[in-house]
């Protein structure tokens, strides 16, 4: 039996009907997005724009009185020792978190991507801290970091004969920032692990098998097969940990409140203190604006580089 297809005649699209996609589906009208866009505009855009405007005033954060001060707040920022110290701390923390958290995350992912029997249980254990509130984790570690010689980490060190390593983990200005960084890394390494694990699941086994036939060892296969194909996972992990590091706030406030002195202040804690402790909301907003622009710039540069690496891979 032969079937004759009816002749196809071009049909002029009725303007009142929804536009059709080239692939055949119906393109949804923009109106569908309107409710979400309105909410976004009201909740995000409007407050952000109004907030950005405060950066050019001397508003205290309460009351109506405010004066336009031009770019004075930004000039002050350049000469503010506390803010500059906080910028240095922020960068140190970010670098530590990006490098160590992702390094540990990758090692954990490689470890649980093997055929060991307990791999599923280990995945759950390593990921567990991620689902706990950062405030809870901070208080937990504050307890662990108790400076008394017979408490917390110090007691544990003493019990295994390493009493000489006991420290004032959060009270020593030179050590406190690294104690906070360790807490963040402890909590978030599992998150990096999961993303790397997803990347590892996507690496074709055949490539490994053929490389093994060619005599490639474990290190060579990781270097030439796994690592290049993990590029998208690296991009995501580096981006997320960078933004997380640059905007780190909760753990600092909960564990050290920026102290001792200013030793663990970050840009986020400085802008919080300026707004709520010093009563300088205008200046605080200027710090926030600079931080937002800084994070965006770093993110764009990073994503540009990492995407080009993905393409090369």
């Amino acid at each position, binding site marked *: 039996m032969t079937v004759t297809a009816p002749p196809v005649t071009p049909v002029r699209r009725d303007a009142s009907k929804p536009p059709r996609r080239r692939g055949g589906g119906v393109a949804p009208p923009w109106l569908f997005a309107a409710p979400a866009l309105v909410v976004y505009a009201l909740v995000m855009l409007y407050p952000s724009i109004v907030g950005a405007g405060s950066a050019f005033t001397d508003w205290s954060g309460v009351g109506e009185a405010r004066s336009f001060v031009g770019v004075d707040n930004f000039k002050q920022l350049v000469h503010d020792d506390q803010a500059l110290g906080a910028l240095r701390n922020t960068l140190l923390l970010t670098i530590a978190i990006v490098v160590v958290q992702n390094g540990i995350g990758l090692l954990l992912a490689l470890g649980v991507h093997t055929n060991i029997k307990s791999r599923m249980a280990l995945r759950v254990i390593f990921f567990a801290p991620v689902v706990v509130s950062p405030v809870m984790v901070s208080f937990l570690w504050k307890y662990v970091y108790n400076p008394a010689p017979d408490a917390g980490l110090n007691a544990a060190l003493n019990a295994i004969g390493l009493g000489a390593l006991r420290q*004032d983990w959060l009270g020593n200005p030179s050590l406190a920032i690294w104690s906070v960084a360790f807490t963040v890394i402890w909590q978030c390494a599992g998150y990096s692990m999961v993303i790397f694990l997803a990347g590892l699941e996507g690496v074709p086994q055949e490539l490994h098998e053929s490389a093994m036939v060619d005599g490639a060892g474990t290190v060579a296969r990781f270097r030439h097969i796994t690592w290049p194909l993990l590029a998208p996972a690296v991009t995501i992990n580096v981006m997320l940990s960078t933004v997380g590091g640059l905007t780190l706030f909760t753990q600092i406030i909960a564990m050290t409140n920026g102290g001792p002195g200013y030793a663990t202040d970050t840009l986020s804690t400085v802008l919080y203190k300026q707004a709520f402790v010093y009563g300088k909301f205008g200046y605080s907003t200027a710090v926030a604006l600079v931080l937002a622009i800084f994070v965006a710039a770093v993110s764009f540069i990073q994503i540009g580089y990492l995407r080009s690496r993905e393409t090369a891979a």
Partner: protein
Amino acid sequence: MALDQTVSRRRLLQLMGGAAAVGTLAACGGNGGGSSSGGQLKVIGAGSQEAGLRKALDDYKKANSDFDFNLSFSPADQLQTALRAQLAAGNAPDMHAVYPGNGSAMSMVQLSKANLLTDLSSQSWTQKIPEGFKGAFQQDGKTFIFSPGTSVLGAIYNKKAFASAGVEPPTTWSELLTVCDKLKKKGIVPIALGAQTPWVTQLIDYALVPGTVYAKTPDFDDKMIAGNASFGDSGWADAMDKYLELQKRGFFNDNPNGTTYEQATSMVGTGKAAMAVQVSAVLQAFRDASPSPDDLGMFPFPATDVAADNWIPGGIVVGIAVSAKSKRAEQAKKFIEYCGQPEVVSAWSQAVACVPLYSDGDAKVDPVLTSFLPYLKDNKAVPFMDQRWPNAEVQPTHFAVVQELLGGKTTVQGALKKMDEAYRKTA
């Protein structure tokens, strides 16, 4: 209604719209929100004043059946954030905690300048505010807060620890060093210091400065305001040197920068440490940490070797004020007028271990405070220093530089230079 009943798209949208409207209206009129909640007066107090404020509200409610309140408390840091955000958004509670004088973002001067507090000047109790304390309550001649009295600052000590070392409360700086030395030799930490908690860092300076600064220069604050004095060129340097001397002699617990207020409190309560420099308003916390409340006493912390120069710090405790935007301002003002009665002032003061602002006859105070009363009577008490600082930046700067001093990251002159810089910034 059958569960499998079909619902048309139009009907579904109607139901969703109705649900949204109900939700919105409920949010506007519910009793969990701002100053318009139900028929209750919404009150947020400072944690340190809980016992006194709660008793006053309970007693007032018993006497006024139409009065009801919704009371919650915040620690100091949350007063700075949550309550300040509510003030900024215009939905502050009807009545809330406010720090007396100036020097904090939540202080009476800062909030009254922003027109956020109701004027209480017409109330009769305001006429009884002692002259020396008016600056804590009033701005431009108007009274904006109520506070039950003054909290004194000194050493809360464990009597058993002192007895085991065979020492008595000292009255001069040299005696203090001797007492600390004996306690240390006995294996007891002489002074518990929880300097990881920011506000604790200031207390030893506050205890010493009345003797090293104000006893010689009572008008030091006026000179500072006029620009004729500075922290760096004053007895503040002597006070900070003495603070560091206590650390260098090993009279503090190990790692004070990593120790919290709660840990230090526990150390004194259990006798592991002999004393802590603290405000009387937190006596109850120390008593809670001690096997027996009678184990604890309090004495003025000596700053010099001349007993006559050893003045004490005594500041008005955290007060309450009525929000300028409260819809129940009249109700709140009536309650504050009730609080201003001498018997209520007395009951509140006793509940929070402070000396009443005024009294009919002899003031009833917690027995452990009796050694402080002669100083108050002889005008040898200085308001807490921050209450006359011109902006909210000096006090947190003081917290930070003390932590830096204890951590060996700055010098006394470096620390005082930062405080002077913060002082000279505009309010």
